[in-house]
């Protein structure tokens, strides 16, 4: 059980796909302008990664190694298309906002990476936990970044205004720069800094 626990907690902290492995940065920059989009994106990645990991793990002994990348890609692509269709049917406005980025989950290096590195060599249950863990690690960073970008960039959270009117009367202004991609990169950088300074395992020897 301890081992399975680690599978879940490691990717959230010391093996975080975004801040430690620096994977999936492109999506983290693109869809973190608003909290809602980031949450939907995180859930989509969670769904795709968890299922893809389990499916590949179940098939692992039957997949011909010469076409394993193609098989992985087909599994990921099908799951992504299903997610895209469901979003279009149930949360149309969010799906319009995410536009191509849902489709681009296919190319998210985290997913390919976990399938190749973990699911191909492990049983379904650890693979499921690993998938959920990695997707949560990714989603956590996305949500933190989106929280700050939406709060400082638009003065709202989940679309609701949270910065009191009085602030604006005193000359406070939303920072338009937060909405642009460069600030997402800087926010991710700050998170990496805070994490590396505080987590013992990540502090490098002098």
């Amino acid at each position, binding site marked *: 059980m301890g081992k399975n626990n680690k599978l879940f907690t490691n990717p959230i902290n010391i093996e975080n796909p975004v801040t430690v492995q620096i994977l999936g940065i492109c999506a983290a920059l693109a869809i973190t302008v608003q909290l809602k989009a980031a949450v939907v994106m995180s859930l989509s990645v969670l769904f795709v990664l968890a299922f893809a990991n389990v499916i590949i793990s179940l098939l692992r002994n*039957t*997949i*011909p*190694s*010469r*076409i394993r990348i*193609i*098989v992985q890609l*087909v599994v990921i692509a*099908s799951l992504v*298309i*299903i997610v895209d*269709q*469901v979003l*279009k*049917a*149930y949360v*149309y*406005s969010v799906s319009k906002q995410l536009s191509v980025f849902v489709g681009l989950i296919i190319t998210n290096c985290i997913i390919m990476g976990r399938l190749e590195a973990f699911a191909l060599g492990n049983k379904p249950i650890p693979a499921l936990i690993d998938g959920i863990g990695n997707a949560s690690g990714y989603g956590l960073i996305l949500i933190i970044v989106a929280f700050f970008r939406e709060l400082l960039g638009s003065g709202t959270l989940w679309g609701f205004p949270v910065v009191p009117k009085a602030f604006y009367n005193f000359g406070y202004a939303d920072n338009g720069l937060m909405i642009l991609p460069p600030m997402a990169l800087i926010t991710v950088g700050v998170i990496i800094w805070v994490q590396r300074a505080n987590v013992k395992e990540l502090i490098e020897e002098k």
Partner: protein
Amino acid sequence: MNTNSNLYIFIYSSVMVIIVAAALSFTAITLQPLQEKNIEIEKQQNILASVNIEATTENAQELYKKFITNSYVVNSKGEKLEGKIAFNSNLAQEVAKAHADRDLPIYKCTKEEKEYFIIPIRGKGLWGPLWGYIALEADLNTIYGAVFDHKGETPGLGSEINQEAFQKPFKGKTLFNAEGKFVSITVHKGGKGAAAAAGDLEHGVDAISGGTITSKGLEAMISDCLAPYETFLKTQKN
């Protein structure tokens, strides 16, 4: 079993493809009605947006029923065509026809006791289709509002046509000149203030810098889609 033999790989991939195809078709077909409804609601939102009515996904249908009091299809001679429904007309097919053969949908909006005529438009940008709605005031000459959208214009350049900053200047522009000739709207290159510099404040708006092909496509779309309405607009006016 040898999982690396050619035969195994062939069978494996064929079975995989069939299963995946079945699963995806099933999803697509079951979700289609919901997706179509979303598209319909979006269309209603767009039509309402051209007359400056903001509608959410929840109240779009209700507001549409309230404000869009009439809609019909005319031909290029300005005669009403019975039995055709404006909302169902397929603009992509209509714009491919010659001007004289097109079915021309019109939506009539009644807001604050004033009447507006909304005309849907569609054309090509740089990478794909553009579309939008133009709302005319009761004089059938002055633009009351315009909304545009696009499938995949360059982000930050051509894609700016769906922003308010580009759409707002269309308000108040006129389609006919002082002699009553149809002149449509001209999009002026040269950044902010280009239309004013060219001395064309009545029928001109500023193009988007770096989005020339999109801007020109939009100009062509407006003139191409509104030209067949000329007779209708003139006869209704008198």
